[in-house]
């Protein structure tokens, strides 16, 4: 029965090839647009997710306060309001995975004929774990380096290239001022952060080394920033409250006084960026879906014409024993075949378009199996939905009227 109906549908479609092709074209464009837009939208989401994971997950940043000299206020992180013991106290709180105090500044570095200015992060070995940032070549410094304030450093990729060029920097030295520093390792490349700043333009060294041998702070043990990694996303709201009250207590801030530090939840920032991309990708999909809808209406239009043209044939079929559901199934099958074949072609074009966008425009595109399956499901659904009314109309014809139709 199905075999006979498929041959019927094929014959009916073949009888008016141009019309069938044009009807299909509506679906081709619709599905192609949806597939392409979904690939681009998911690509954008993927790119944002990559950036977010490069920041490390479940991260809080505590910045020290600002100084105010004669009413001129400096930026966050410039006053020595945070110190290493604050970091040690935070590490005792529930839900804390690792804590890394960071003292930073920008310095000029020299290696042979090259020199370069970059940010130095003076911190503890836990820093690499907190930022989910592995050392790719060589190794990291250890707690004994921290205790002894040895002159060692781990370079970001950008710094390594600018100072050492094609040389392998591991084990070699560079100078800050007159003091030589030994390169222990090179960090894995991380790329840009959400603001577009190059995260690899960085030198990481022991906190004690940075404080005593590079910046020479007047306040022993003060840090500009404390990175706090929570053990799970669920504990983050409670941990944020606990950290704030702990720091206020430690800094002896009175009720109503402003915080002398800033607490930031990086995950929340990242999530809002991800949400923006998600909305954009939904919007792209929605706009593309409109063309799918138009394609579906095209199918309905042509099926209605086809039912009218074949009224007499429907009458003949009814007279020789076709039930209403046979007629319904015949026209429905035709609509579904048109939409599914159109979908297959549209899928090919959409994937080709995504590939072109990737190759020519260097866009990140992601094609998932689920988006392909969704496209097929939607196309079959469009065929059934828009084919149903014409098919129902065909099945509901009065056989006598249909037989008389010229």
């Amino acid at each position, binding site marked *: *029965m199905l*075999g*006979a*109906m498929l041959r019927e549908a094929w*014959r*009916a479609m073949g*009888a008016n090839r141009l019309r069938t092709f044009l009807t299909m074209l509506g679906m081709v464009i619709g599905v192609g647009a949806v597939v392409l837009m979904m690939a681009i939208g998911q690509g954008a989401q993927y790119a944002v997710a990559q950036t977010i994971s490069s920041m490390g997950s479940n991260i809080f940043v505590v910045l020290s306060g600002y100084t105010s000299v004669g009413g001129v206020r400096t930026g966050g992180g410039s006053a020595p309001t945070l110190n290493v013991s604050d970091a040690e106290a935070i590490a005792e709180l529930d839900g804390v995975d690792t804590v890394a105090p960071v003292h930073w500044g920008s310095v000029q570095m020299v290696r042979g004929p090259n020199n370069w200015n970059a940010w130095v992060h003076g911190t503890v070995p836990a820093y690499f774990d907190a930022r989910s940032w592995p050392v790719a070549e060589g190794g990291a410094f250890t707690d004994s380096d921290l205790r002894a304030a040895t002159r060692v450093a781990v370079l970001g990729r950008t710094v390594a290239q600018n100072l050492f060029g094609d040389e392998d920097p591991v084990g070699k030295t560079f100078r800050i001022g007159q003091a030589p520093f030994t390169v222990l390792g090179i960090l894995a490349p991380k790329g840009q952060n959400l603001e577009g700043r190059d995260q690899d333009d960085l030198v990481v060294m022991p906190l004690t080394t940075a404080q005593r041998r590079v910046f020479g702070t007047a306040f022993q043990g003060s840090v500009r920033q404390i990175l706090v990694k929570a053990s799970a996303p669920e504990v983050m709201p409670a941990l944020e409250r606990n950290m704030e009250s702990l720091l206020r207590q430690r800094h002896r801030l009175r009720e109503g006084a402003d915080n002398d530090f800033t607490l930031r939840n990086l995950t929340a920032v990242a999530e809002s960026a991800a949400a923006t991309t998600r909305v954009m990708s939904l919007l792209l999909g929605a706009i593309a879906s409109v063309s799918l809808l138009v394609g579906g209406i095209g199918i309905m239009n042509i099926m209605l014409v086809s039912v009218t043209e074949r009224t*007499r*044939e429907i009458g*003949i*079929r*009814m*007279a*020789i*024993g*076709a*039930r*209403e*559901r*046979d007629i319904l199934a015949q026209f429905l099958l035709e609509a579904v075949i048109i939409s599914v074949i159109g979908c297959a072609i549209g899928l090919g074009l959409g994937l080709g378009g995504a590939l072109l966008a990737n190759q020519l425009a260097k866009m990140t595109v992601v094609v998932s199996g689920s988006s392909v399956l969704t496209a097929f499901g939607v196309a079959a659904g469009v065929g059934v939905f828009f084919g149903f009314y014409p098919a129902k109309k065909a099945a509901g014809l009065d*056989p*006598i009227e249909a*037989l008389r139709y010229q």
Partner: protein
Amino acid sequence: MSEAVIRVEGLAKDYDTPAGPFPALKDVSLDVAPGEFVAIMGPSGSGKSTFMNILGCLDRPSRGRYLLAGRDVAKLDKDETAALRNRTIGFVFQGFNLLPRMSLADNVALPLVYSAIGHEERLARAGAMLEKVGLGGYAGSLPSRISGGQQQRVAIARALVNDPRLILADEPTGNLDSHTSEEIMGVFRALNDEGITVVLITHENDIAQHARRLVRFLDGRIVEDRPTLQPAHSPPTLPSAASGRHPLPREGGRGEGPPC
């Protein structure tokens, strides 16, 4: 005498018109026994086509009873009447009504599609039926490639393919010249000789003379119901049950090749 193939009692059909209900049939009663060959005659508007549509389960009467092979058609749902049209009745139309894009074999096999019979058996039975109406060599041709008389033979083959008890033919020779008409009537006679009940509508007296019984309609009523004088026929009450499936007479005089 066995149970009537067709039993109609007090049948009436009203059509709704802007001027009120128009009675197309008024109190028609008729019995057709198995193996009968009935010609229905009457001027246009006499109700004979309406009557035929009701007999063919394409239309329902406004009043009265219609028993087809003992079953009250009014009590059947749409799928059951479709099954009756498919298996119990074979239709032959004035305009042949073959599907133009299908081969003759596919046309003949079409009723079998709706009885859920497999592809192989469909083609085998369609081939046998085309053979029977003398068009065995044309299975793959399209209807447009053969003459009107040949098309009507194909239509008869289609009507026969599901072994119906009753053939209903609505002016089957209306579009044919007199010579071809004679041939088609020969086919119907041969079918009737095999025991199939045939009811046909015609407005030509000499066509009606091929039947064994003549029913004349006028203004929605039967005004005449009498046997025709057909010496060549055996009595209608004695269908030749023993006669096998002998081939029907072939189209004569015009050769076997395609006409165009």
